[in-house]
């Protein structure tokens, strides 16, 4: 079995540059182009998701003032908003976008192992987005079942979009899973098999570790969503009763019998909980790299960080039923799942400590990416703490299905990863385009977004504590909603609109800097990891010019005492490290 590892092959032989516009930018097999395609599609659909949220926030803040929102489209907006943000924006952007861009570059590979399938992945993803959007335009409109799509109501008359909306939704998810699998197999295999010389697993930047583990979670968790989607499609289209019990609907018995709605919940959350870490782990990884680079300090406890990522990944498969404490499952399950849920908080907390300790006595540069990274530490800690409340059965029972849950998951899965997305885009923008973004606009973008989200979600915790239930079109004059809650709802809406408007700063900055930004040079942050050492910026097809890089150290040699520079790229061998003055960081 004589074969050569990818890093040892002579690539010049099989290296053809794409030459036409189509092969370069449309049907491109270059991981960097695919990454940007993924990113652009994800951000565009993310903007749609954001507009939907502005629309339903208007209704919540100012009930019945805006006549274009009725109960049906309120539910449709909420549902599609959630679905877009979790799956089509964050999953696609972190794995398809950052995964594609960073894995080969940070590992010293020329491309993904199977570029053709990688290309298919992005176009199949585009198809899934089109199907999703199309569901707004079919008879009955998009589904309004909530992003969790619980049956029976997801497919029973009375819920919006039970004609075609739900079918297209499930179909779109199926197509997305196919796209994800094609990409995901590439990411995992590339990490395992295509690293360059010297790049051991324990020298990989944490970005790659996070994306790698998240992809594994995806490959093992999406099957549950796929299966539940297929079963629900059967229930909807063929009249089977997998999830449909015997029911009386509007006084008439349905002809479904013996199905189990709880089965759906189990399958959904067996996917759904790992999914939250599919979004969180890449964010953990990327933010570690941002913090370390801009604090000019090695990441604190690298090994611990890696093992925490692995432990969280493993544990995330045995906590799913903490979403089902009120579902009527066996109470002993609650005991088990509360325990595992609290255990998973341990490695998570560990990571937070390590981020803070990385900042400790660092030479902190408060540039835009760093601001976002530090913002993430705040919002994530905050959301993690409310998670501990919800993880305990007795505390969760009254809080379940209230705005407290909405506040929890928006802090932890909405705001936090999105802050990292922004930080990471600003951080790698110079590498992707060769130009700098506008720093002032970036700072405005950060502060408005960061303070805006706090003014939106902090009051939401309080409203949740009062017992205001989520997913209600209008609260009416209910006793438990004091006036303060009504006023707060209006103020939260205003914050949400401000945050939404702020994002135009980001879009404007990204587009204008493409042409007008200062030239950045190849390594503006003085970073150590491989992607900053490419011969060209933006890197050309094949990434490394004539020969692959060789790695001599881990990715975090910042401010090593006794060295002339405060960073040593991974490509520099021990013998060539410039020795010189100590540059002032005490250790």
């Amino acid at each position, binding site marked *: 079995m004589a074969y050569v590892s990818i890093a040892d092959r002579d690539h010049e032989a099989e290296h053809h540059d794409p030459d036409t516009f189509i092969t370069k930018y449309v049907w491109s097999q270059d991981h960097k182009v695919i990454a940007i395609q993924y990113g652009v599609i994800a951000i565009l659909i993310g903007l749609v998701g954001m507009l939907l949220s502005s629309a339903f926030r208007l209704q919540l803040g100012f009930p019945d003032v805006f006549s274009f929102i009725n109960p049906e489209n309120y539910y449709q907006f909420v549902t599609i908003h959630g679905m877009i943000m979790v799956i089509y924006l964050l999953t696609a952007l972190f794995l398809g976008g950052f995964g594609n861009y960073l894995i080969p570059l940070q590992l010293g590979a020329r491309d993904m192992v199977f570029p053709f399938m990688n290309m298919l992945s992005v176009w199949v993803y585009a198809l899934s987005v089109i199907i999703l959007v199309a569901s707004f335009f079919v008879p009955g409109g998009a589904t309004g079942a909530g992003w969790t799509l619980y049956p029976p109501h997801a497919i029973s008359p009375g819920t919006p979009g039970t004609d075609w909306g739900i079918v297209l939704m499930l179909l779109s998810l199926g197509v997305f899973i196919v796209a994800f699998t094609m990409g995901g197999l590439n990411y995992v295999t590339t990490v395992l098999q295509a690293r360059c010389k010297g790049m051991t697993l324990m020298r990989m930047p944490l970005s790659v570790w996070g994306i790698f583990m998240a992809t594994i979670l995806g490959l093992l968790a999406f099957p549950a969503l796929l299966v539940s989607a297929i079963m629900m499609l059967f229930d909807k289209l063929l009249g089977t009763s997998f999830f449909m019990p015997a029911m009386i609907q509007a006084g008439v018995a349905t002809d479904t019998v*013996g199905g189990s709605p709880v089965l759906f919940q189990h399958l959904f959350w067996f996917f759904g909980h790992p999914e939250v870490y599919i979004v969180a782990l890449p964010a953990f990884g990327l933010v570690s790299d941002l913090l370390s680079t801009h604090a000019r300090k090695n990441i604190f406890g690298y090994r611990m960080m890696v093992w925490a990522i692995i432990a969280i990944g493993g544990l995330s498969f045995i906590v799913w039923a903490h979403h089902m404490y009120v579902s009527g499952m066996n109470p002993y399950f609650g005991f088990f799942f509360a325990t595992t849920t609290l255990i998973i908080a341990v490695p998570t907390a560990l990571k937070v400590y390590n981020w803070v300790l990385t900042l400790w006595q660092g030479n902190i540069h408060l540039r835009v990416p760093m601001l976002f990274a530090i913002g993430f530490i705040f919002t994530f800690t905050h959301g993690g703490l409310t998670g501990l409340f919800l993880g305990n059965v007795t505390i969760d029972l009254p809080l379940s299905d209230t705005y407290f849950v909405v506040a929890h998951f928006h802090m932890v899965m909405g705001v936090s990863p999105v802050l990292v997305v922004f930080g990471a885009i600003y951080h790698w923008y110079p590498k992707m385009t060769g130009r700098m973004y506008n720093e002032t606009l970036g700072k405005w973008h950060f502060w408005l977004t960061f303070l805006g989200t706090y003014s939106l979600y902090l009051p939401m915790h309080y409203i949740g504590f009062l017992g205001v239930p989520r997913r209600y079109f209008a609260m009416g004059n209910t006793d438990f909603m004091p006036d303060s809650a009504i006023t707060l709802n209006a103020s939260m809406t205003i914050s949400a609109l401000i945050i939404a408007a702020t994002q135009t700063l980001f879009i404007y900055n990204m587009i204008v800097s493409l042409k007008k930004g200062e030239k950045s040079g190849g390594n503006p942050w003085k970073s150590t990891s491989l992607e900053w050492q490419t011969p060209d910026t933006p890197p050309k097809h094949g990434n490394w010019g004539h020969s692959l890089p060789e790695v001599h150290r881990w990715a975090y040699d910042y401010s090593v005492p006794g060295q002339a520079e405060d960073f040593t790229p991974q490509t520099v061998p021990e013998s060539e490290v410039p020795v010189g003055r100590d540059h002032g960081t005490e250790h």
Partner: protein
Amino acid sequence: MSDAATMDGLPDGAKGVVTDYSADKQAFHVPWGKAMMWIFLLSDTFIFSCFLVGYMHVRMAATDPWPNPSEVFGLSLFGTDVPLLLIAIMTFVLITSSGTMALAVNMGYRKNRKATFWLMVVTAVLGATFVGMQAFEWTKLIMEGVRPWQNPFGSAQFGSSFFMITGFHGMHVTAGVIYLLVVANRVRNGFYEKRGGNYEIVEITGLYWHFVDLVWVFIFAFFYLW
């Protein structure tokens, strides 16, 4: 950071394992295609596991009585009722195809292109036979009135899960037959000769094929023997 220093205190064997998997360039000493197939199959295992766990759950939750498999799947031959006859033959055919596949892999490594080609074709034909017999079984059940949404022998969920899961598996077999034929054709026309005469792809195809067989064993046990 020295990697060796942190392994002090580990026994030698463990050190070997650690250095193997944390070495540079690659974690497994196999071509990437094979690693990728293994990872795909792991993911696919989760799909089938979810299907089967879903089936178990539905079967326990169903309110109507579950039909007796040996009656439903009985075949009457020359006037006597033989339980599970068809399915026994189907299973036998599929297991045999795994055998021919294994031989094909072996012939591939010996670079015996002709034998590899024919063994793969035989494997594909056996696979197609399996799908054909499955179609026959489906037809028989449908004629007897079993549908995804109804079932004269008892619980409707029996038909639902049977058609769904065997259908999903049947699609895997069909895809496998096509995959086998494509690779077999390339073995025959010398496609891999031009690429350095590497027949690893036969083994990769074989991995998929054995997996589909293995899954069948579980489906068989859960539907026909339980």
